């Protein structure tokens, strides 16, 4: 009897949270879809149904083309950079050197800081001014005789967004390192020792034993980082403000909705972002929860 009462009680305990998530996540998504199918422009809501018109317009919109290009470049730079740096740092830290925890803390601390702080500081590090007004990293390169490295950073035509990717790598590569380090620590030492006894070279051990075992971590990291780059927003705003050459969908959505009052278009961008994130995250959630159930 108490058991029965308790199972009702258990549902009661979680129902406020479940209700909140259903309204604020799923209800709001449905509401956004409805806005995206409407002709709402201006301050007063207007839910006149126009079908997929807003989406079709977006696909023809030159600004949205820039957004997609920038997202692709940013994602490539950010994901590849964070993975390469992350695994390198993790392998270096896994060698049992002294001071390991110090280095680990240094590599991870940017995770504690907001994209806005990172952006404001990198804005000055990546100051694109040339000549006598040169400063930041360009000045440092120039003083070190590395003039070939002096560049326009985020003002570089076409590739400017890659500079934002660099700041994002600075912020997130420590996270990738932590994921890989956890993976390396999970590999039984006997595996390595056995291979060493058989005379395998270090290179061979990494190539044929360790890297394959880390593959699932690479996949998880790619998904987590990939979905972050689809959402990139504050970092760009803090480094460069709203500039069309550094535009991404998240900024376009924000600007067109709250500055331009094109609510229907804003909602369409939001839904497209959601779909692109869902393609990555839903299989990931299914996979992770399934493997968890098997354990």
């Amino acid at each position, binding site marked *: 009897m108490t058991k029965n009462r308790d199972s009702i009680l258990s549902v009661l305990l979680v129902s406020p949270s479940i209700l909140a998530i259903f309204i604020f996540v799923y209800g709001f998504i449905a*509401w956004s879809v409805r806005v995206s199918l409407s002709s709402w422009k201006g301050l007063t809501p207007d839910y006149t149904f126009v079908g997929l018109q807003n989406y079709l317009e977006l696909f023809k919109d030159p600004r949205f083309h820039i957004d997609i290009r920038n997202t692709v470049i940013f994602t490539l730079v950010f994901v590849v950079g964070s993975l390469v740096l992350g695994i390198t740092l993790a392998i270096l830290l896994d060698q049992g050197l002294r001071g390991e925890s110090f280095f680990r803390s240094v590599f991870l601390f940017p995770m504690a800081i907001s994209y806005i702080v990172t952006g404001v500081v990198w804005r000055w590090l990546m100051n694109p001014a040339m000549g006598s007004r040169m400063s930041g990293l360009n000045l440092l390169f120039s003083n070190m005789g590395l003039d070939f490295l002096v560049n326009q950073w985020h003002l570089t035509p076409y590739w400017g967004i890659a500079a934002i990717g660099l700041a994002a790598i600075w912020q997130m590569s420590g996270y990738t390192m932590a994921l890989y380090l956890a993976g390396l620590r999970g590999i039984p030492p006997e595996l390595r020792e056995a291979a060493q006894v058989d005379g395998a070279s270090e290179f061979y051990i990494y190539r044929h034993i360790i890297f394959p075992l880390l593959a699932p971590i690479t996949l998880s990291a790619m998904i987590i980082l990939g979905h972050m780059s689809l959402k990139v927003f504050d970092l760009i705003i803090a480094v460069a403000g709203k500039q069309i050459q550094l535009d991404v969908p998240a900024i376009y959505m924000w600007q067109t909705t709250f500055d331009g009052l094109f609510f229907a278009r804003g909602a369409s961008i939001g839904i497209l972002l959601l779909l692109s994130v869902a393609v990555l995250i839903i299989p990931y959630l299914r996979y992770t929860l399934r493997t968890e159930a098997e354990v």
Partner: protein
Amino acid sequence: MSATTTPLTNKSAGLGFPKLKFRAKHLLYLPLLLMAVFYLLPVYVMLITGFKGFEEVSLRTMWDLPSTIRFDNFVEAYKNLAPALWNSFNMVIPAALISSFLGSLNGFVLAKWKFRGADIIFPLILFGMFIPYQSILIPLVEFMRSINLYGGLPGLVLTHVIYGIPITTLTFRNYYATVPKELVEAGRMDGTGLLGSYWYILLPLSLPSFVVVIIWQFTSAWNDFLFAVVLTSPSNWPITVALNNMAGSQIIAWNVQMAGSLLAALPTLFIYIFLGRYFLRGLMAGALKG
């Protein structure tokens, strides 16, 4: 077989470099130090710029150490940012506490008193932590307007509490799953009901998880920009929005911006420095594999 070069007793955690390569191992400090410089460079610039006097600040001498330690920039930045800093504290502390508490309740039920349908509900809750918030932003603003919470801090607190539920629930559920079933069942034999087993058995064990979750929620709400910029009016701006606004203005010099950045980063940096272990655990929970 060349096993002779590799003593099996070598206890070093890593490659177990053979003895003759011992020096090679120390060469690994070189890339590590180089990378440490890369990560600390922005901090170096923030610090030296912050401590320079106004007359000494010039973009040309950005990398030079200050000749004397001055606090002008920090004073100036604090004058600008103080209200926003307090807004942030007032918003972040309740948001972190409430969403952690809710997460603990949910985690408890989902780990120890599974109801029918829990296996469907849980992934649906989890998905909420990955969505791009642009996809719910318009309804969120409309909703906050309709309940008169638009523009102020309570609306922002509510938003952080709700969108924090997925991660807090996940962390607590994973933690409570490691608590032996027998503990809860023994309580049940003694006639302890659902609430009793939560209150007397699990909650006292939860302190470490609460630390992990609260600092995680504190950090993410403190660092949030999107919700804050959309939902609050200027007098209620938290620090991220105020700092970004300061950085975008032509009037406030870059040296003050640098000092302001440091002020904005300090609370979460302190947490990181003093409670880093817990911070890291929260970080790993976000990747789902606890």
